[in-house]
């Protein structure tokens, strides 16, 4: 028995949080996650994969482990800035849950959506549930889903986002409305399987995981999420990133 609650949900949910210089954000995101999990009486743990942050992120993580429990907050640091994909692989080695949630630590993904992910996953026995910023209803249907959206994007950014999504949807036909999103719930063996096959890096990595998952036949559901971008500061998107994105889509087209 994993949780100590008398609830029908006896699964344990591991959150992998890759961090770099998140000393300010980390306590708050942990507080939000803990609040959501305790409110819904779910067994949980958070694995913090820190890439040798110079600003004291690891010290704050140790304080949080003391406050919430060493079994709940696990700090698994790494020697240097080694990238997102390997951070997930590293974190997966320490997961004791049977579901894994990946998300950003900068408040763009709000933990309040996690119970909706879980409910959708359980209702339809899905392998993966992903958050989408572009839809107002979930697929398959979930009664409590609120419309998604973004805060902090101007018209140009929205146009670029829609254009990028249209390109990926036309070329790759992935079956999800938000391909670059990184707020997802995975079944542990599914994530392990997909991550061993993924080769790209950066945000193309997130796209590749979803495309490979679909190609392998895993079931995917979507829940609308609100995305608060760059709560401290402006969102910038350069020409290099656009070119890199197009290259990433072309590589996926060739390999999957």
């Amino acid at each position: 028995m994993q949780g100590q609650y008398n609830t029908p949900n006896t699964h344990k949910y591991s959150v992998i949080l890759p961090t770099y210089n998140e000393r300010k954000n980390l306590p708050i995101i942990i507080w939000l996650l803990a609040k959501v999990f305790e409110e819904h009486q779910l067994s949980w743990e958070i694995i913090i994969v820190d890439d040798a942050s110079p600003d004291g992120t690891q010290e704050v993580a140790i304080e949080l482990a003391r406050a919430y429990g060493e079994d709940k907050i696990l700090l698994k640091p790494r020697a240097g800035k080694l990238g997102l994909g390997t951070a997930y692989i590293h974190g997966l080695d320490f997961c004791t849950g049977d579901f894994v949630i990946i998300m950003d630590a900068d408040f763009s993904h709000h933990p309040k959506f996690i119970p909706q992910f879980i409910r959708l996953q359980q209702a339809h026995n899905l392998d993966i549930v992903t958050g989408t910023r572009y839809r107002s209803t979930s697929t398959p249907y979930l009664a409590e889903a609120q419309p998604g959206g973004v805060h902090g994007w101007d018209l140009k950014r929205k146009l670029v986002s829609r254009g990028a999504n249209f390109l990926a949807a036309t070329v790759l036909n992935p079956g999800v409305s938000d391909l670059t999103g990184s707020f997802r719930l995975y079944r542990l063996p599914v994530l392990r399987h997909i991550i061993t096959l993924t080769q790209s890096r950066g945000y193309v990595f997130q796209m590749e995981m979803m495309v490979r998952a679909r190609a392998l036949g895993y079931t995917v559901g979507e829940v609308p999420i609100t995305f608060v971008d760059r709560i401290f500061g402006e969102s910038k998107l350069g020409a290099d990133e656009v070119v890199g994105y197009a290259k990433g889509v072309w590589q996926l087209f060739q390999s999957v």
Partner: protein
Amino acid sequence: MARLHRVSIYSSILISIYLLVLFEVLPIPLLDANVAQEILPVIPWWLLVSFGSYSLWSLGWGVFTFRDCPEAYHELLREINEAKNDLRSRAVTVD
């Protein structure tokens, strides 16, 4: 088989059929030859324009229906304040 290979095979087959019909190697059963010769050369351009208009509509509609969520932003700011106060009482350094 990767998506690129699947798409290449299907499009090669379709393009070969199209070229055979265009150069009158294959006949179309129910259509008059004159009418067919007027329509066929235009088909690629028609496909291009249709795809272009669909893309434009799709982008325009997508941007038009892109929701803003200011309430999520304000809720988040409130929660950040609440979290900071609670965490200070639990001996965690915030800010």
